[in-house]
């Protein structure tokens, strides 16, 4: 589904991704773990063209997208939905308008069909009765869920989550993680989740990739990762055990 071949990305003199080689299979939930500043979010943003790699290739659904223009990326962004670290909702629009915006942009739908899809997306993230509210009138956790609803309403084949639980309390974190798992299974999507949370990764991931200083230091199924001898992975596992 998604392949990275020797992907390199630098910012000025600092090389953030140092030749990433990775293969994400269709329908998998893949967790990308690593300490801050190791290039996890940069990897996701390169996937959908929000950042451009310096060298290397990115293949999505059999297409090499690494040299794509902004216009060419539109079709890729239709396929891939991204949930950002921040809810990134548009403050000037209501929750309904925020979720419906993409539908209006990409599909020619009747208003009652849009309404139905918006309500369906909100119920998927366990929210209701907030359609007429503005983002500032609901809690941060709810904003994150709305952001998720805005992405899934477009029914993408790939879901990219950039630290979806950052800044949330443990209860909401747990519910968001459960939501990621249930949505990916229900909608049959390929999911890439950037996270620091090894405990959650062990619970819901099909595959875990650990990045350190712009390189993949280990990867495998949760079972395989439990046996890892890589110091960083051991640290993450130790941290997960202490939680």
């Amino acid at each position, binding site marked *: 589904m998604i392949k990275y071949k020797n992907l390199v990305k630098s910012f000025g003199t600092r090389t953030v991704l140092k030749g990433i080689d990775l293969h994400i299979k269709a329908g998998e939930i893949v967790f990308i773990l690593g300490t801050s500043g190791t290039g996890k979010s940069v990897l996701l*943003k390169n996937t*959908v*063209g*929000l950042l451009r790699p310096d060298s290397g290739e990115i293949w999505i659904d059999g297409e090499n997208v690494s040299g794509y223009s902004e216009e060419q990326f*539109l079709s890729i*962004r*239709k396929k891939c*939905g*991204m949930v*950002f*670290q*921040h*809810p*990134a*909702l*548009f403050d*000037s629009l209501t929750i309904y308008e925020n979720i419906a*915006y*993409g539908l209006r*942009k*990409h599909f020619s739908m009747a208003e009652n069909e849009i309404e139905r899809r918006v309500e369906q997306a909100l119920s998927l993230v366990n929210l209701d009765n907030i359609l007429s509210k503005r983002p500032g009138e609901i809690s941060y956790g709810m904003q994150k869920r709305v*952001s998720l609803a805005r*992405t899934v309403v477009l029914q993408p084949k790939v879901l990219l989550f950039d630290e979806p639980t950052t800044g949330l309390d443990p209860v909401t974190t747990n519910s968001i993680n459960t939501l990621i798992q249930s949505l990916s299974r229900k909608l049959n999507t390929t999911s890439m989740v950037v996270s620091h949370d090894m405990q959650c990764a062990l619970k819901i991931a099909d595959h875990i990739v650990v990045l350190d200083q712009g390189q993949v230091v280990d990867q495998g199924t949760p079972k395989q990762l439990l046996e890892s001898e890589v110091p960083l992975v051991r640290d993450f596992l130790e941290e997960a055990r202490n939680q």
Partner: protein
Amino acid sequence: MTTKQLIQNPFAFIGVLLIHTCRDARAFLTLVVQTLFQLVTHLPRKKETIQQLYFVANGSLWTIIFCVCFAAVVTMLESSFHMKLVIQNDSMVPGFASLLILRELGAIVTALLLTSRIGAGMAAEIGSMKVTEQIDALKMLGINPIRFLIVPRLIASTIGCVLLSIIANLVCIFAAMIVADQFLGYSNGMFLTAMRRFVDFQDIIFASIKAFCFGFVIPLVSCYFGFNCRTGADGVGRATTQSVVFASVAIIVLDFVLSYTFSYFY
């Protein structure tokens, strides 16, 4: 190169400065071209443009009226005082003051006040959107951020600046007339006669062209700094400050260029 190396080598410092300036100028010009392309090829978002126009015009109206009134009072009193001091006669003050107000004061005071109010607001708003990944979210939804964010602000600011500068000119002339009548002893009739002798219709047209250009520049500079904002509250603050400084400087330089160009038509 490190900061220490740059300080030790002045040629390297100048070189780096030049490279950065050229890079920033190219980025700004690219944004201007992209904005003009979007402006010409797509219909603007009506609701957003009207909201922005309301924000620009209605929100700034009373501040501008208040400030230009004082600018008119100061212009009249100062010119009269100095003329009396030098040539013992201030009969030219109403005419000169009207000319100064229409050619310079109305448009430039309006533009500078708009820069500090709406320019700063635009840079902060777009900067915050950049920091909170809303601009990336727009791209993910297949929406062009320039069309979505800059074009409505550009149209609103240009129309708003022209309208406000016309109002500012009228209010300023009216305030000058009151000062002339109350403090300098020139009746309203005398003031208007002097004004007609000094001011041409083309002065009003040139003032409107200036306001149009200023209104065009403010959102472009502000949005440029907003789009290139660095992360964090510090980044937004820095972008806002830079946008106000650069837009103000751009307005002053543009005023000189336009005044110099218009001088060929007199």
